[in-house]
């Protein structure tokens, strides 16, 4: 059962990467990158159960946090053109 799940995750990983390469807009790419991060977590969990060592699940938590940071950084950069943007400071300047 876990092997089937792993194959399915690999297939969806390939689809997400195809979208990241082909994606016409930036948001397709951001979403595909986020999906790849999520699928990496799932693959880690399934592979842990497949080899009988599910204690690697803790690493999945780390991956989840990192994935969030990366996606947030990209989106914030795209919205403001700057990583250290402070909304209040921008309003005051205007």
């Amino acid at each position, binding site marked *: 059962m876990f092997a089937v799940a792993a194959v399915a995750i*690999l297939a969806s*990983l*390939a689809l997400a*990467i195809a979208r*990241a*390469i082909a*994606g016409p807009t*930036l948001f397709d*790419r*951001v979403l*595909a*990158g986020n999906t*790849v*991060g999520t699928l*990496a977590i799932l*693959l*880690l969990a399934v*592979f842990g159960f497949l080899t009988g060592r599910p204690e*690697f699940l803790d*690493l999945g938590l*780390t*991956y989840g946090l*990192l*994935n969030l*940071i*990366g996606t947030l*950084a*990209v989106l914030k*950069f*795209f919205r403001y*053109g*700057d*990583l250290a943007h402070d909304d209040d400071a921008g309003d005051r300047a205007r």
Partner: protein
Amino acid sequence: MALMTLLAITTIAIVRQRNLFGVVILAGIYSFLMASVLIVLDAVDVAMTEASVGAGISTVVLLGTLHLTGGLELERPRRALLPLFSVATVAAVLVWGTLSLPPFGTADAPIHKHVAPRYLEKSVEETNVPNVVTAVLADYRGYDTLGETAVIFTAGIGVMLLLRRGRGRRKPDGAADDTGAAK
């Protein structure tokens, strides 16, 4: 092996991609794939480092670089045969080097024969550290780790000095230079 194929596809896409935003995102995807490959190879700690440095920190650092430089790569100047040749030669030498390595996962490889049994048997009584990896890193290879930390510390100081110098120079020019840098 499917993971390795996806890794190769992502690498080629990174090389061919002209929009640098896309390159940053593809690089994040690449390091998540690389972390998955490392997990399959049973190197979980390396995988966690790869995911945190590759997908987390370097995405942010690359975006900061994009803020300073700009979003589009310039056109390729010319066909370069000599770099291609040197890269191919180095790759051939590396592959040739892996041929004489012992097969993956064999118990009697030289790396498992030299000092590893002593570490595994005596680390608790010699160092009183329950975790073997920590004992090796911080006790048996203490000077090595100290040197690594000194190198990273020096690199951090250098980067901080460079960044502060750039900021100090830009300030007197005022707003016009700032908008030029934001382009």
